């Protein structure tokens, strides 16, 4: 069974304090790994898709990386507006659907 585990569940940082969120996955044949951002009271918003180990994607202060077992979402010099829940999802080649992790709730204090 495909599984996704995100850690930590919650992370509180000071503005400017860089850190990383982890997404560990177990899937037989990874088709793609996806990162979404969810603000309170809103639906998730797509950030990145990663397809193969070694791939990296960047968007503003965010950089996503992928290995054969996990993905990291690196946040460099975060600002309060980066506060959100970050969701990771995977899709296997044989699967019809995505499997989501539980999310990491990130809070950036000014």
């Amino acid at each position, binding site marked *: 069974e495909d599984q996704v585990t995100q850690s930590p569940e919650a992370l509180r940082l000071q503005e400017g304090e860089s850190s990383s969120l982890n997404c560990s996955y177990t899937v037989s044949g990874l088709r793609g790994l996806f990162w979404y951002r969810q603000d309170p009271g*809103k*639906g998730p918003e*797509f950030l990145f898709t990663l397809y193969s180990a070694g791939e990296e994607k960047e968007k503003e202060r965010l950089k996503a990386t992928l290995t054969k077992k996990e993905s990291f979402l690196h946040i460099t010099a975060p600002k309060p507006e980066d506060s959100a829940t970050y*969701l990771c*999802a995977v*899709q296997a080649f044989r699967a*019809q*659907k*995505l499997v989501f*992790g539980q999310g990491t709730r990130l809070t950036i204090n000014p």
Partner: protein
Amino acid sequence: DVKVTQSSRYLVKRTGEKVFLECVQDMDHENMFWYRQDPGLGLRLIYFSYDVKMKEKGDIPEGYSVSREKKERFSLILESASTNQTSMYLCASSLSPTGGNSPLHFGNGTRLTVT
């Protein structure tokens, strides 16, 4: 920009009521999805549809049904609401039938409380 609109932000219903959750997308996507989101459990797929009048069960279809009479509209139906169906319900659409090759575009959710 794709817009996915869910008709209600908050709903309070009584046990046993029949509940309709409506979702409309404006980007002509063939694929639409219903998820529920619960603390500690993440997003779980209830049903999805890859074409008008077509539907497929997701991971947790029990107690739910869906209707897709028009391409832009996907309805989730709780036949007889129960308290364990209290949750946040999220509708999504995508160019991809799996939400994989093309990202999912989500609505802002309907928070349903069943008392």
